């Protein structure tokens, strides 16, 4: 199948999730040449990195109005590329922008769009496995429409490379942007005041749930986190109660974390929460209930009262630091 892959890049550097999406795109192409579509400044530079990921041709949409992200302008670039190539499928990374752009393409062309696919099950008729419930459930689905529009769920397919590949041939084109394509675009960027260790990037996360009992209860978690250079997270119950801000929430509708160690204190382990922390290399559960669902997702567990256990761990770590 002739496949067009949407590739995101920042300042000429290809996004990791786009490289993962290329793996699935190549599988779908099944030996036919794979074309990548890049948009905006840096697209040409980024395309040179794609040969080792199996891309034969790079199509770069160039227009100074593609400088600030506009979902409609990207969608126009995709539909123009489909017209030029007569492509059988478009594959995008399952990122905020990848899913947004393909939704616009699907709406414009009145086609189905399978978001967050994890596997191609059959090429004809096209059948995919896609992610539901933030990864807690999978769905096998058939896509009735051509070109097929698919995005690839983050971290479900590794970014594989191919040996001995040349850099792709590069062709640029000017998408036929109209006023409506540019009505919605980033008008302004506001920098965040960053403080402390970011939840998404922390090596250790100390996280608390209902069992912590109150906003004040997080004091002991913060103390432990400080010793471990960890970020403090929490479950949805905690943010709904107003004990912690939503920016601390780990879960399907919060932040997805991937630390070396995730310490879940007083967290029962609802699927909503597991969807956010299953990327952790190891999970330690501290819970008073030896039957809590979190134990089926955890690697280690301590059973008992977290208000005794957490300070005891902190004390043990401090003991180790004394000369």
């Amino acid at each position, binding site marked *: 199948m002739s496949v067009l892959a949407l590739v995101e890049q920042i300042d000429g550097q290809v996004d990791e999730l786009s490289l993962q999406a290329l793996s699935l795109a190549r599988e779908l192409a099944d030996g036919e040449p794979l074309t990548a579509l890049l948009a905006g400044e840096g697209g040409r530079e980024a395309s040179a990195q794609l040969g080792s990921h199996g891309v034969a041709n790079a199509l770069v949409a160039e227009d100074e109005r593609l400088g600030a992200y506009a979902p409609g302008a990207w969608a126009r670039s995709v539909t123009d590329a489909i017209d030029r190539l007569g492509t059988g499928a478009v594959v995008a990374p399952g990122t905020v922008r990848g899913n947004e752009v393909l939704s616009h393409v699907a709406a414009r062309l009145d086609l189905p769009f399978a978001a967050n696919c994890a596997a191609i099950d059959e090429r004809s008729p096209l059948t995919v496995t896609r992610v539901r419930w933030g990864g807690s459930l999978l769905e096998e*689905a058939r*896509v009735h429409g051509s070109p097929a529009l698919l995005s690839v769920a983050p971290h479900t397919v590794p970014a594989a490379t191919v040996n001995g590949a040349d850099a792709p041939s590069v062709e640029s084109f000017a998408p036929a942007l109209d006023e409506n394509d540019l009505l919605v675009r980033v008008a302004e960027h506001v920098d965040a005041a960053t403080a402390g260790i970011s939840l998404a990037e922390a090596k250790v996360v100390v996280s608390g749930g209902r069992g912590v009992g109150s906003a004040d209860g997080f004091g002991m978690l913060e103390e432990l986190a400080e010793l471990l250079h960890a970020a403090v997270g929490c479950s949805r119950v905690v943010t709904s109660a107003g004990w912690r801000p939503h920016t601390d929430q780990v879960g399907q509708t919060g932040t997805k974390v991937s630390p070396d160690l995730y310490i879940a204190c007083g967290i029962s382990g609802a699927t909503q929460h597991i969807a956010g922390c299953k990327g952790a290399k190891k999970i330690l559960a501290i819970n008073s209930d030896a039957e809590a669902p979190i134990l*089926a997702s955890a690697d280690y567990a301590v059973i008992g009262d977290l208000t005794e256990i957490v300070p005891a761990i902190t004390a043990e770590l401090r003991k180790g630091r004394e000369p």
Partner: protein
Amino acid sequence: MCVKRVPLTGGRMVLTADEQAIETRHLGFTISPHEECGVEEAVRIVEAQGGETTVLTLGPPEAEEQIRETLATGADRGILLAVEGEEWDPQATAGAILSTIESEEASGGAFDLIVFGNESADSGNFQVGIRVAHALGRPVVTGLKGLTVDGGRARCEQEVAGGRDVYDVPLPAVVTVLEGINLPRYPSVPAKLRARQKPIDKSSPERPDSRLEKLRLVLPPGQGKQAEILGEGADAAPAVVGVMRDLGVAP
């Protein structure tokens, strides 16, 4: 405000025998978390600027419960597109929502703002709001963590790496929101009683064939590992620190 009834899944999912749905006999129901915040956002805008909040859902007849919950947290009226049987795919869902909005607007004038959750908690298709916006020819901004409506325009904020991207679009517009844009209120008992008196219009659209056709649901592999118990109570602290040192995360 468009919402979707979804099960409260708890800790473990079990599928029905035909592999078409989650077994929900012992589960409660709610609306998707992003949508709870969407309802709150809509209600706050109306409280500040006047107007009316209409909540629309496509779902089983029991989804009337979820509409009543939104009416108890400040929405004014509900529309239930009651459907039974197989799940609707995102294209069909968008089509039914579009028809309803068009007929509502033909009699009552345009909605200034149409709000969706960024994606539903269960099927996560990420597209219904964008499809509806496209068909209506209105601007759509997705994934909002901040929204200010003023002077016939909407200032929309998205969280991105290193800060926030800001969009400014004219009304009428469509937006999709994320949990965290606000902290939704809990309904008071008097509000729950008042909600019983608020109107809900009901109709039953026909389901078109799915173009994203669900064949079956599958539980992902690797569920049900069993944690190694390091100990009970404070006595387990040395074992925990031992594990931390083995993992190279403790000093």
